[in-house]
């Protein structure tokens, strides 16, 4: 016989391989994670609460979605959903006047804004209110799309500011901060950026 019988393969290490695979899958499998747009609802005001202070019209950016899922901006221009973000950014970042006083300091101009400083648009990011009006018959998909774009506008602005101040985007900053909860300087930075562009987004009650 030219060839010897092939010796049986040693199966002793098979278990090791199996465990290796098992551990690999254990580590890499992500169970379906729940994701979504987080929002905070406004607190219910008591019946006898004083009227909220009137906002200047130029400081309110009204987006209306009607029951045919048409999107109307500022009550006059129809828009497709992908234009809203740029329009909202233009409004928030305008910086045409003095803002609300921060920490008791004198009202100041927005010195981090890159907007057109148009006196007919918002004064300051902390005064700029975005109001999303909807109809009961609006489809949820459109509503979420619009809301996504509006939240996205704030994220974009924060990214730009964070990039300028710290060299990394706000999204990355937030991620780093969440990964190192003990790092207070990262937390401070997140807070600062958030404070410069506070998210003031009101979801008005829908028209019947």
């Amino acid at each position: 016989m030219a060839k010897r019988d092939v010796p049986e393969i040693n199966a002793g290490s098979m278990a090791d391989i199996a465990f290796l695979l098992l551990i690999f899958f254990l580590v890499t499998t992500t169970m379906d994670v729940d994701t979504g747009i987080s929002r905070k609802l406004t607190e219910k005001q008591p019946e006898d609460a004083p009227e909220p202070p009137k906002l200047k019209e130029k400081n309110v950016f009204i987006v209306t979605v009607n029951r045919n899922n048409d999107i109307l901006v500022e009550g006059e221009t129809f828009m497709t959903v992908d234009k809203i973000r740029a329009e909202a950014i233009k409004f928030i970042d305008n910086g045409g006047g003095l803002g609300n006083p921060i920490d008791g300091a004198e009202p100041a101009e927005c010195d981090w804004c890159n907007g057109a400083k148009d006196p007919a648009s918002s004064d300051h990011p902390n005064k700029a209110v975005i109001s999303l009006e909807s109809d009961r018959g609006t489809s949820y998909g459109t509503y979420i799309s619009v809301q996504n774009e509006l939240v996205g506008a704030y994220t974009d602005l924060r990214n730009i500011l964070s990039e300028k101040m710290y060299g990394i985007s706000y999204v990355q900053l937030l991620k780093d901060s969440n990964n190192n909860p003990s790092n207070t300087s990262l937390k401070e930075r997140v807070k600062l950026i958030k404070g410069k562009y506070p998210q003031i987004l009101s979801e008005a009650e829908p028209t019947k």
Partner: protein
Amino acid sequence: MSKFKKKKKGMPGISTASLPDIVFMLLFFFMVTTVMRETELKIRKPQLPKATEIKKLERKSLVSYIYVGKVEGQNGDKIQLNDRISDVKDVKYFVFAERETHPEDEIPLLTTSIKADIESNVGTITDIKEELRNVNALKINYSTLKGDIRDNVK
């Protein structure tokens, strides 16, 4: 011909000693990755909208779910709380029940995740939000998938 036969005879049988290991591995794998549905869906599985500005929901124990969608053969949006179709007025009892199961200091952290179908009416969602505001459950999350928002409109 005879040469051929001889070779065949020389082949050792494949050892099956590792078969149990493989089977156990598969078993473990499925055991680990299977997520048991806490609640059985009574409504048609909602087709969630897509969004880009999404956040992961951390600490699942703090999240309770409200499903909104259609029921086969019935008109209008239906709300499912736990394992049954409910009226919007039951949302507050649902929130109270959820609070009962958590220690006091975690109550402000409780989040309500709204898993609504893309074709639901905003009116239904607003009713739910109004109820949640009434009982001061203010943290909400519109459950979405990651994707292009243009897929939301058809």
